[in-house]
């Protein structure tokens, strides 16, 4: 059933147009990138605040600061980076409407991201200073909080997506959303790397 054109007026008929599209043709793609723009601005402002506060101090971080063990933080980074590979399969497969690789990709991706959540929890537990110790502690904890928030919400999103994919039925128009989930997740991964380097290696 569809609107049909009355006789006597000129009409453009769009009844056969597809009901979804990939990439910048899709409004949600724009929504996601705008969300990422907002999030990136927040991360940039946090980083700027970090460097602004750093500019006031001659010793940085303040004496007596103990970071979480390097190997533990590196483990988180590795888990994050590993999660990119299966989500990349899913990303590739989505545009070809191949369900099986998407399912597997998301399952593995979710496992990797859950692993990152676990190591992150240990990381937080082993940080040797508090947010109320000094401004350094405050800003680093703020960065940790922001990223952990994204990490957990991203993991939950991956998990939900996995469930939906396995439960089915899967509509074709879910495919663009799958690609967008991947992009969001990569943002979570990529945004951590500079912060990780700064927190672990920035000393004067």
């Amino acid at each position, binding site marked *: 059933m569809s609107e049909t054109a009355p006789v006597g007026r*000129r*009409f*453009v*008929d*769009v009844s*056969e*147009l*597809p009901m979804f599209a990939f990439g910048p043709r899709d409004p949600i793609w724009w929504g996601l990138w705008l969300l990422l723009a907002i999030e990136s601005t927040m991360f*940039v402002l946090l980083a*700027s605040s970090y*460097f*602004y506060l750093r*500019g*006031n101090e*001659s010793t940085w971080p303040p004496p007596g600061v103990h970071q979480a063990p390097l190997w533990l933080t590196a483990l988180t980074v590795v888990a994050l980076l590993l999660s990119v590979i299966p989500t990349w399969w899913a990303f590739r497969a989505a545009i070809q409407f191949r369900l099986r690789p998407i399912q597997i990709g998301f399952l593995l991706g979710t496992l990797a991201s859950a692993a990152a959540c676990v190591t992150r929890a240990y990381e937080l537990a082993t940080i040797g200073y508090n947010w109320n110790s000094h401004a350094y502690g405050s800003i680093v904890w703020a960065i940790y909080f922001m990223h952990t928030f994204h990490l957990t919400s991203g993991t939950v999103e991956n998990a939900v997506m996995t469930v939906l994919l396995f439960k089915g039925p899967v509509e074709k128009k879910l495919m663009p959303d799958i690609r967008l989930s991947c992009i969001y997740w990569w943002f979570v991964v*990529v945004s951590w790397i*500079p912060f990780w380097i700064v927190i672990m290696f920035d000393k*004067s």
Partner: protein
Amino acid sequence: MRLVFDILVTLAMIASLTLYFRGVRSTKARVYEPIAFAAGWLTIFAALVGPMDTLSDVLFAVHMTQHELLMIVAAPLIVIGRPMIYGLWGLSPSARANVLAITRAPAVLKTWRAITGPVVVLIVHAIVLWAWHIPFAFEGALHNETIHAVQHLMFFVTAALFWWAIIQGRYGRLGYGVAVFFVFATAMHTSILGALLFFAHGRWYPSYHSMEDQQLAGLIMWIPSGLIFIVAGLALFAAWLGESERRAKASSFTTLLMLLLFCACANEYRGDRIAEARQLTGGEPERGKTAIQRYGCGTCHTIPGVPGAKATVGPPLDQIGVRTYLAGHLINTPANLMKWIRAPQSIDPKSAMPDMFVTERDGRDIAAYLYTLK
């Protein structure tokens, strides 16, 4: 040491200038392109050789000016001059074929595509910029000429890639809207870096002694550079609007009507042509389109439907499906078209169209795509 570097830089620059202008002479360039290239070239020369470079060892502000000249004056000017195309044309035909063969290698192409994605260059340039301002890195550059050269090279190359991706990159004028956004983002983060330098309570780099000097350097990075970014952003934006106007005119209202009234689906309105093209050539038009991008046909030809293919070096390829002759004397048949694509010199030894070593299958696909253009 310094002298050696100066000589090396000068030599490399003279070589690049020679190559570029040989290329310009052997093909047709838009008037502004060589001018932009020459201006960019002079800027680099002024920044790297001579008093500015000497002064930059004692004055941070001068050093900052030098970097900004490299990144936001020279780099975009050079990119506007399209050095790769003219450089290629400046080579001898055999060298050109060799270079092309290397650059057409799938691995090279893939890497090139990966590192010139607009988001990627945005991030890479940002990382390079911020990382080199970490005190030990910057100090290292100040004390060691080699590190310094690497720093300048990285600044310039990532900046050039950034400007290339947003001005000449794969989305062309279509992507200028996004380009405005990227220019804005870069303006923002460099301003923030400048502001941090300006507001810092201590000196970042022990080699520079005066606070005022550091503040001035920060200001240069923040405000005059910000202005240049604004001008660039506005220019891109104006070009974007212009492109929108052109496209709207091209898909002018009657076209729109025709398409929609008579074709079932906008996405597949070329459906019957696609089928026909497949039949004629045995190739796959969609694959052909990517092959066209991969081989860089768009740097010489205007090809409808291929992003960035807007050049006027060779003839435009629109409606090639309905033309009678190819290359002026060859009957337009699928076999001839494929032959022409794969080995132009075998048909016309004097043709300027390079032999790009197109594979059999790619040739088929490209021909298939071209036959959808009616």
